C-alpha cells in the first residue's frame, strides 16, 4: 500500500473514531448528574429562574434533539456559547490554547530532546556511577508530584532567590504602561514562562531519559552494534549512527503522543503557576457542567491526538525502512 491510500484509509478511520468520540462525549455529559444551571448554589436563583434558563438554553428539549443541534453546530463550525463566560466557546479556546502550546508543547519538545540525548549517552555508561545516579535522578524527577515541586520552585526561585516572577504570564505593571514596547512585553512573557518551563522540563525529561535509556540498552544487545564495533567505528559513531536511530524508534511514538497530549495542558500546573491555559478551563468546564466549553475542548484534543497518531505512523514509516504501508 502506498502513502496515498494509507492517508485515505487512516483519514476515514479518524473520521469514524471522531464520530464515536463526539457521540460518546455528548452522552457522557448528558448522563452526568447536575445541569449547569442547578449547579449554581445561589439563593437568589428561584426554581422559576432555573426553569426559564433551562428552557432558553434548550436543555429541556429531548436528548436527541439536543444531539442533532450539537451535530449541526459542530458542522457549521459553531461550538456554542459557554454558559459561564457567555462567550463563543471557540473564542475561549483560541484565547487559551496558544498559551498552553507556548508552555506545554515547548516544554515537551525541549524535554524530549534533552531526555533522548541524555538517555542515549547514559545508556553507554551502563553500570557506571554516572548511569546509576542519573537514572536515580530521572526516576525521582519522574515521580515528583508536579504541583508540589512547582510550589517548591516558586518558593525557592521566585520568592526566595527572586529570579523569576511568582506566577502568571505577564507583569500587569509592564503591560499597562503605554511606553512598554513589544520587546519589553515579549521579554516579560518569556521571563514568566521560564520557571514553569523549567519545572515541566525537569519532570518530563526524566521520563524521556528513562525510555530512551532502556531502548538504547535493548538496541546495544543487537548484532549490528557488534558489527559496527568490529568495523572499527569509534564508540561515539557506534552510538550515534547505529544504536541511537534504532533506539529512537519506540521513543518516537511516546514523544509524538505526549506532544499531542501537551495541548490539553495540565490543570494543576496551570493553577499553581496561574498560567491561563486550556487545562484549567477544561477542569472548570467539566466541574461546572459547562457543556459547550467542555465538549468543544475535548473534541479539539481528541482531534489533535488522532491527527498526531497519524503523523507518528507516517513518521515511523519514514524512520524505519522495514515498515511500509
Amino acid at each position, binding site marked *: 500500500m502506498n502513502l496515498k491510500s494509507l492517508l485515505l484509509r487512516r483519514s476515514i478511520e479518524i473520521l469514524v473514531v471522531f464520530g464515536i468520540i463526539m457521540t460518546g462525549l455528548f452522552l457522557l455529559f448528558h448522563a*452526568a*448528574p*447536575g445541569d449547569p444551571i*442547578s*449547579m*449554581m448554589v*445561589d*439563593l*437568589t*436563583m*428561584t*426554581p*422559576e*429562574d432555573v426553569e*426559564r*434558563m433551562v428552557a*432558553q438554553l*434548550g436543555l429541556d428539549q429531548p436528548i436527541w434533539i439536543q444531539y442533532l443541534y450539537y451535530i449541526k453546530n459542530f458542522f457549521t463550525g459553531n461550538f456554542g*456559547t459557554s454558559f*459561564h*463566560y*457567555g*462567550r463563543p466557546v471557540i473564542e475561549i479556546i483560541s*484565547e*487559551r490554547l496558544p*498559551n498552553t502550546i507556548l508552555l506545554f508543547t515547548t516544554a515537551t519538545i*525541549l524535554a524530549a*530532546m*534533552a531526555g533522548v*540525548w541524555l538517555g542515549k549517552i547514559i545508556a553507554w555508561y551502563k553500570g557506571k556511577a554516572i548511569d546509576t545516579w542519573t537514572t536515580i535522578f530521572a526516576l525521582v524527577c519522574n515521580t515528583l508530584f508536579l504541583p508540589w515541586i512547582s510550589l517548591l520552585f*516558586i518558593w525557592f526561585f521566585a*520568592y526566595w532567590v*527572586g*529570579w*523569576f516572577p*511568582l*506566577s*502568571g*504570564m*505577564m507583569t*500587569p*505593571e*509592564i*503591560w*499597562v504602561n503605554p511606553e512598554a514596547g513589544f520587546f519589553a512585553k515579549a*521579554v*516579560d512573557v*518569556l*521571563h514568566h514562562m*521560564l520557571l514553569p518551563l523549567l519545572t515541566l522540563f525537569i519532570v518530563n525529561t526524566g521520563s524521556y531519559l528513562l525510555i530512551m535509556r532502556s531502548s538504547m540498552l535493548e538496541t546495544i544487545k543487537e548484532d549490528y552494534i557488534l558489527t559496527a564495533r568490529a568495523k572499527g567505528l569509534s564508540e561515539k559513531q557506534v552510538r*550515534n*549512527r547505529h544504536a541511537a*536511530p534504532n533506539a*529512537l524508534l519506540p521513543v518516537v511514538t511516546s514523544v509524538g503522543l505526549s506532544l499531542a497530549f501537551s495541548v490539553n495542558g495540565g490543570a494543576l500546573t496551570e*493553577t*499553581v503557576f*496561574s498560567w*491561563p491555559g486550556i487545562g484549567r478551563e477544561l477542569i472548570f468546564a467539566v*466541574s461546572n*457542567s459547562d457543556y459547550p466549553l467542555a465538549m468543544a475542548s475535548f473534541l479539539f484534543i481528541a482531534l489533535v491526538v488522532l491527527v498526531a497518531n497519524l503523523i507518528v505512523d507516517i513518521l515511523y514509516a519514514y524512520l524505519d525502512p522495514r515498515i511500509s504501508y
Partner: protein
Amino acid sequence: MKVFFLFSDFYRKTIAASFLLALCFVLASCSNGEKDGAILRIGMIEEPRTLNIWLASDANSRKVISLIYQPLYTYDPDTLDLAPWLAQSMPEYDPETISYTVQLRPAKWSDGTEVTAHDVVFTVDLIKDFQVPRYYSQWQFVKKTVAIDEKTVRFYLAEPRAIFLTRTLVNYIVPKSQWAPIAEKAKTMANPLIALMNARVEKPLGSGPYVLAQWREGAFLHLVKNDHFFGSGIEISNRKLGPHADAILFKIYGTADVGVLALKKDTIDFFWWSIQPGYIEDLEKDENTKVYLSDRSALYYMGFNVRKPPFSDPAFRRAANTVIDKNFIIERVLQGYAARMDSIVPSENLFWYEEHLPRYGQGLSRDDRIKKAHRLLSENGYTWETAPVNRSGEVVTPSRILLPDGRPMDDFTILTPPADYDPARATCGVIIQEWLKDLGIPASARPMSFGALLQRIKDRHDFDTFILGYGQLALDPDYLRSFFHSANNRPGGWNMSGYSNPEFDRLADESVQAMDPRIRQELIRKMQQVVMEDVPYIPLYNPAAIEAVGEKRFTGWEQMIDGIGNIWSICRVKSTEADM
C-alpha cells in the same frame, strides 16, 4: 537516516539558545524594579468569567462588578443598616399607595453623563421584561417604576414587601445609554434572555469609584479611577470617601499559597480571598503583612429529609442535635476560626438573630450529651437491646436503635461534598457519623461530587441527611422563608428538607409584608424559635473570613461583616507614599 545526524547538531544549538535566553531574563529581571505607588494591586484566586452583570454568578466577577456598578443603597459597615449610596437619603414610604420615593444624589456615569431616574426605571423594567434570573424575584412585586423628575424615582409595589428595602434596593443600577441598545437587539433574538446575558460589554459604563481600562484575558484587569465618582470627597456613614489609588490592578494567583507569597513579596497589596487558618502564623510574623479576621454571614449545617422516617420525627432530630459537639468541630476541624451556630441566622447578624433558643447539647460533656439524647429518644418510644446508657447510668456502646414500632432503624447516609471541594464538611460528616453511633444510630458519611449531591438533594429529594453550607448569606433573613416555607418544598426549591409547619408558614407570610422593621424583627425571631424547636437543619458553624493585606503601601481597610473586601475599603484605602 540523515535526520539523525542533524539531530545532534540541533540539540547543541537549542541548548545554547536556551542558555542565552535564560541569561537575558535574569538580566531583564534586575531592571524592572520600578513601581507606581498609586496603583492598588489586588490578588484574586481566579479570573472573573464575565463582566456582564446579568450573567456574572461567580464570586470574582461579582467583586470587580461591585466596583463598577453601584446600588441605590448599601450597608453601613458599623451598623449593617441601609446607608444611602446612589440615593440622597432614605426612601419615603407611602402606605396609601404602597410606594417608595427615592431621591438620587448628584451622580454621574463614568462617561460624564448624569445618573438619572430614567436609568433606575430602565434597570427595573429591563429586569422585569427579561425576567433576569437572580434579579427578577426581587423586583417582580414592583408594579410600576416612575421617574418623577430627573433625580426622583418612585416604586409602586403590588403589595407590601419587607424585603424591598433590604434586598431589592441594594441591587445595582445600570445605565440606560449603554444597555438600551443591547436590550433592543436581544429582544429580536430567538432567546432574548440568553442574548442579554451573553451580550459583550467591552467597557461597562458604571458609576462606581473605578472604571475598567483594560481586561487582558488570562492575565489581569486594569481599573482606573472614575473621575466622575459621586462619592469623591463626600462623607457617607461618617466616612470620607476617596478613592485614593489612581488605579487598581487585579492579578490572578491560582492558589492561596502563591497569593500569600505575593503578599509577602509585596507584589500585591491585598489578597481578596479568605485564606486557610494555616497561613495566619506565617503572615503575622511578617512585618509587612497584616491579617484581618472578620465575621461572616455564612451558614454551614446538617439537614434532614423530614419527608421520611425516622427523620420526620422532631425528637430524633433533636437527639441528633444534642449529640453533636459544635465546639469540637470548630476547635478541631476549623482550628478555632469559626463561630458556633445555634440558629439559622448567624449571631453576628445582631438585628435579626434570636438569642433565646433551645440549647440542646451546648456546654455538656460527651457523656452528658449522650445521656440527654438517650433520654430524649427513650421518652419518644425508641428502644435498644443494649441502651447507650445502662441502668447504673454509665455510657456504654449501644446496639442498633429500634424505632418506636420496634423495627431496627435502617442504615442511612450523611451526604457531604468531597474532601477536595471542602475538607471541613467532609470531615464533619465522619465525625457526626461517629457521634450518632454513640446512640446506636446507623449513619455513615458519604462524600459525593457536588453536582450529583445537589441533584439528589435539591432536585430529586432522594437522600437521608446532608451537610451543606452557604458561604455568603444575605444580611436580610428572608432566606429563612426560602429554606423552610412549605411552598418552597418542591423539586428545585430551596426547602430541601421538605419541612412543613403551618405555624412557620403563617409567621413567614406575615414577615414578608411586615413593613415595620420592629414587627418584622419579632416575626423573624419567632421563626427562628419554631425552626430550632423542630430542627430540620442543625446549624453547625460560621467560619471566619481570614484575609491578609500588605501594609507597606496602603492602609485604611474597612472591616465589616464578610471581611475587608468591600466597597468601603476600596473607597477609603490610602497610599502610604502619598502622605510623604
